[in-house]
């Protein structure tokens, strides 16, 4: 795959992308190169198939879910704009910038990062993580030595710990509260994507 660096003018909608995602031009160019490298047949779009071709994702417990996060519901192709929109969530948070009211929430804010993670758990998009969904995630993330009974136990505990209104499921607010002490900004940021 020839990897010449793309010229900025080759990228469609460059300015809108930079405005929306907050990336610098260099980053956008780099990600565009990556997009093209992944798009082996030069279709201009990425399919799940292309992303599955990244070997490391097969040994990531959440790999497939993350791949699916790049694609809209029911669709199997993603263009560069959508691709980079997802990656924009992982831009490091600039320090010192106060949250200016009136402007839309930047894509890499803590809220957005959490929303992205929440979306990975909440597969049926009903806004809540049910016991089932929690169990599925746990099953993915835990070694096979853990038996199902133990897993159910863990899932129950997890939900009980976070559930404040007692409905047996975790809503987004409860999720956000349960991880408020975690340094989400740092843990969900790639230094690379400035």
């Amino acid at each position, binding site marked *: *795959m020839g*990897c010449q660096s793309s010229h900025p003018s080759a990228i469609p909608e460059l300015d809108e992308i930079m405005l929306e995602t907050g990336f610098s031009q260099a980053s956008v160019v*780099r*990600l565009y*190169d*990556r997009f093209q490298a992944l798009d*082996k*047949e030069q279709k*201009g779009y990425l*399919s799940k198939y292309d*992303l*599955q*071709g*990244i*070997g*490391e*994702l*097969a*040994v*990531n*417990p*959440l*790999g*497939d879910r993350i791949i699916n996060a790049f694609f809209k519901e*029911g669709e*199997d*192709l993603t263009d560069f704009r959508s691709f980079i929109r997802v*990656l924009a969530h*992982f831009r490091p948070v600039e320090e010192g910038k106060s949250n200016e009211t009136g402007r839309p929430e930047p894509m890499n804010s803590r809220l957005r990062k959490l929303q992205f*993670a929440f979306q990975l*758990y909440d597969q049926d998009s009903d806004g809540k993580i049910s*016991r*089932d969904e929690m*169990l599925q995630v*746990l*099953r993915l*993330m*835990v*070694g*096979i*030595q*853990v038996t*199902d*009974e133990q897993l*159910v*136990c*863990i899932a*129950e*505990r*997890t939900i009980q*710990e*976070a559930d404040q209104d007692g409905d047996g499921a975790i809503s987004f607010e409860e999720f956000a509260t*349960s*991880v408020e*002490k*975690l340094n989400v900004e740092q*843990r969900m940021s*790639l230094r*690379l*994507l400035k």
Partner: protein
Amino acid sequence: SLILSLLFFHLSHKVTRVVPESALLIVLGLFLGGIVWAADHIASFTLTPNVFFFYLLPPIVLDAGYFMPNKLFFGNLGTILLYAVIGTVWNAATTGMSLYGVYLSGIMGQLDIGLLDFLLFGSLIAAVDPVAVLAVFEEVHVNEVLFIIVFGESLLNDAVTVVLYNVFDSFVAMGADNVTGVDCVKGIVSFFVVSLGGTFVGIVFAFLLSLVTRFTKHVRIIEPGFVFVISYLSYLTAEMLSLSAILAITFCGVCCQKYVKANICDQSSTTVRYTMKMLASGSETIIFMFLGISAVNPDIWTWNTAFILLTLVFISVYRVIGVVIQTWVLNHYRVVQLEIIDQVVMSYGGLRGAVAFALVALLDEKKVKEKNLFVSTTIIVVFFTVIFQGLTIKPLVQWLKVKKSEHREPKLNEKLHGRAFDHILSAVEDISGQIGHNYLRDKWSNFDRKILSKVLMRRSAQKSRDQILNIFHELNLKDAISYVAEGERRGSLAFIRSSSTDNMVNVDFSTPRPSTVEASVSCLLREKASSVCLDMQALEQRRKSIRDTEDTVTHHTLQQYLYKPRQEHIHLYSRHEIIQNEDEKQDKEIFHRTMRKRLESFKSTKLGINQPKKLNKSHKRDRGQKRRNSNAIPNGKIPSENPAPDFTLKEKEVSDTNNKPPVNSGYCSETSYEPVNSQDNSVDMQERLEESNPKENQEKKTLLNAQAHYRSAAARRVQSRRSFHRPKPLQLPKLQKLASFPSSCHIPPHSLEQEETQL
């Protein structure tokens, strides 16, 4: 005593966690030397430069080179070179000059030294020592980039050190007055000659070694011997030609590792690994002990407070300044920035070691009058850096890292979600191409694949690597199907079948009986306690009610069994242990599961819940041009009871056709655009695109119709197959090929990643 000390220190891990082993060895050496001296009043063994340079140093450097994580190393090569070359020159020059300046001011008293002597001293004390660095960083787990920079720097600065040392040595010999500008220029030129020459010698021998191992299939017993002999030859050759021997053997190890590992048989590989570790470990121990012993030699002791103190101060200060300036420059060019904590570790981790000592012992007393002073100072500097800095670097690092985080036991949710975040991040890293597609790297990778590997790797190794690469690097569902099916057939994936992962949705949510909980607590408690330090706290705090025991169980279980994200579980280099990929198991599990899931989702989208046995899918490879040889692609026949005969491989016929147009693979549910070659194909695509949920037969029909245009023979066979009579099972040779997946098929991608893209 050597043996005892070796055993003792390797057994007492508790001690070595606090005190670096090197420090302990030095102290032991001092102790022993002291005994001998007290007994006989003679200086016992000293570390002669000869012994050091010819016997003790090569194994260590070879070990470092052979186990070097290449991708990381070459990825950061620019940074490493900058620090190694410019940094060392800076350190040498500034230290030498400052000492001279101080000398001129008279604080040091009367010494018989000139500027050149100081510069000579500066050059030998400036170099960061690989042995010491490794010994200390073993205990301090820093991030991999940082580690490779410091470690790489310590290896590569040898060229600079050698050149500077020789240059100044010859200047001193000539006498200060006779040095001309030409000589200086000659010095600079000699730097390039020495370093590049040394590297070149190393590469030549690496090539030789790989070539030799290619043909050693029938002489397996002596394969390990070749590795060591030829590597050592590279060292000696470079030394003979007055080139940088350390660079030679380093690059020999670095370049040959991939091919040698692929070529030699498993037992030889193990032998080589263990022997190398043994030699390196042993040499290191001996070196440090002798450092201690040699220090107890009253003949050489000359004390000059100012000199010694100032040397210590200068090397530390100038190192810090040098690191800061270089980092500032580098951060403009680097994608991954080096932060303050990295700089602190780099400055503080610049340890001097035995190399400096050996060099100083090599000095000629007649030319350098104050040799003894230099020797004493060097000994003190080495001791100081190894012992003091070695002792304190770990607490320092921990303090810096810990400064921000809180000491609070994380809640269940936090643990779980935190870990999930790590996984997410590492996946996004992979997707966004963290290291980046480097033009050079891809170029090299192509070159390597097409030419080098063909020459240097055994045919069988090449083939198996291709197969593995096809599975791991360009994973697609077809491979998933074949892999899982093959694995199930051979029973290796049986465990996935038996676990109830399929039935997660229907798990019964009745609360677990207390007795199971109790039992699991006790049995979990009996397991490794070392990893659960945090949970031990939890355990002690809450002990009474069952509810609490459930809590501790869950905490404990999570702590132990949550999969680790990638960065945590890669320990790059260890002198004393061979890093078996324990996490190979984790990777294997996840990989199996992922493959299975993809297969399941594929099944459900394509076939629905029922799986008619007789439906054959035709999956055609769409990458004809790119692939060198399309390995056996089974058709998507889902094996049920009798996998073997059902594994009809229509692909064989398909692949035999000469013209292979880039037809899209049969993911009819995934609509994908493609640079279309013919109208028919595009029409077909359109049809498929429009239908959001294409009915199976219909889409197959369109697909097959389109393809009928291209592949007459194959398509006809396909169409005949569609009349639902079972085709006869194809020749199993293709199947055999699959079955011959070497057990190394279970190698996780990471290690392959390392092997495949070397530079």
